């Protein structure tokens, strides 16, 4: 019994040490290494130059600021679209709910890149949306390779991540609570603000985290839908690594991103406690 327990625990621990702790430690190690010509392109030393550069140079700082802004705006957009959606599914007749929920998840299985490809086709200058706009007399607009296209792509991709945990939370609320509140004279908007919204907050936070965090580090969507000006931190890291072959700088960007991602929830918690 004892031995079995040790084995059951040892395997995940060993796995996590090798594939989580070790890689993150190595990233930190490379972040303080020196770039060098060779394979691999670094020399292990102890220098804070890379980290200092990444923390102070406007290129990286702006990338980080832009990423946080894009992620925040996208999360808010997902929340505004997804909350009523999750609520509607939770309120739908029981026999429909499973199908509706499946329909939220289904796009996952069509391939992320395929859906981005579809958006490229829709948003191009000669694409369907522009054809529609021209027909309406508004005229063709440059849509692809703009911030708008990038936001559409991020919201489109991550909307299900927000809806699912939020639905899970909302569906567990006792409908009698609302009846009780309404019975005690609360108008519907007040029932929503005072009863449903506060009780669904854990689901809101979970959903927002699942959108915000990957969105901050997003590479593919800004690369394919956004313009060259959309230099998000994921794109900068990618560029340092693949184009400039500057591993220590790429690792430093990763460290900076990680620190910011750890700090954001901590700051949020402190701000909320006040």
């Amino acid at each position, binding site marked *: 019994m004892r031995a079995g327990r040790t084995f*059951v*625990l040892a395997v*995940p621990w060993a796995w996590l040490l090798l594939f989580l702790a070790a890689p993150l430690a190595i990233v930190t190690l490379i972040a303080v290494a020196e770039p060098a010509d060779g394979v691999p392109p670094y020399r292990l030393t102890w220098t804070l130059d890379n980290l200092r550069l990444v923390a102070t140079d406007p290129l990286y700082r702006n990338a980080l600021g832009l990423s946080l802004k894009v992620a925040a705006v996208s999360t808010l957009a997902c929340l505004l679209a997804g909350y009523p959606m999750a609520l509607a599914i939770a*309120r739908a007749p029981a026999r429909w709910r499973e199908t509706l929920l499946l329909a939220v998840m289904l796009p*996952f299985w*069509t391939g992320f890149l395929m859906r981005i490809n579809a958006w490229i*086709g829709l948003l*191009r200058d000669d694409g369907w949306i522009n054809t529609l706009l021209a027909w309406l007399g508004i005229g063709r607009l440059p849509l692809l390779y703009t911030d708008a296209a990038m936001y559409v792509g991020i919201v*489109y991709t991550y909307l299900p991540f927000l809806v699912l945990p939020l639905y899970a939370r909302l569906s567990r609320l006792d409908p009698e609570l609302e009846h009780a509140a309404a019975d005690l004279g609360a108008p519907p908007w007040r029932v929503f603000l005072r009863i449903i919204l506060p009780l669904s907050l854990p689901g809101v936070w979970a959903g927002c985290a699942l959108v915000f965090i990957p969105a901050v580090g997003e590479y593919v969507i800004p690369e394919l839908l956004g313009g060259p000006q959309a230099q998000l931190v994921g794109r900068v890291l990618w560029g340092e690594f693949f184009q400039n072959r500057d591993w220590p700088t790429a690792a430093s960007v990763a460290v900076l991103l990680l620190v910011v991602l750890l700090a954001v929830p901590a700051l949020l918690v402190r701000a909320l406690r006040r």
Partner: protein
Amino acid sequence: MSRALAGWLVACYAFLYAPIGFLIVFSFNDGRMVTVWSGASMRWYVALAHDQALIDATLLSLRIAAVSATLAALVGTLAGYALARFGRFRGRGALEAALAAPLVLPEVITGLSMLLLFVVLEQLVGWPAGRGATTVTLAHASVSVAYVTMVVRARLAGSFTTLEEAAMDLYAPPWQAFAFITLPLMVPALAAGWLLSFTLSMDDVVVASFTSGPGASTLPMVVFSATRLGVTPEIYALATVIVTVVAAGLCALSLVRRHAA
């Protein structure tokens, strides 16, 4: 449900499905343009069937996805079981946090850190030699463990303890209680976790791009570089094939479930 909510729901589903409908329609377009309709044709499906690079990439991706999902299922089951069953133990909090970490790490960080791990490992112990299918598989498995753990743990939470006790009460030693009761009841969760891991692996560009090497391009990597050069209806044809396979799989699954119930 109020009318406004229902209307919003319809709009959201339209938003989610319109692009998919669009690419299915245009996969049958005869022209080279993905925006101008020039007659129905299967030519892009024919082109797809002759695109050896794409077929090789698909086979490679399927292999990587299957192996990494299986690996993740093995490790994730143990971790999920420990978290659901062992109550309080030393390092529980750390294990929980570490298992959740891949869920909240941006892909670029996961990709970069895994690559650096493989580079250092090769220097230190000579394995894995070079980068390719093996390294991508390991990287994908390392992310997927978190998902399998989550699903298995949710399934195991609380509900089976009495059933295991009942089995032991009826003369089953602990390992038999696990084999005859816990394991069969975990199958749906395991299948869900495996499928989720498989999907994540099939869908990933970023981690694969970091951890792969020459000659080992996964399907998403090939599609990604093709997309950068310009969208072709061939990719839409591929997407339609994927949609068809997934839809067929879901139909088969629901038939099996209806039959079993």
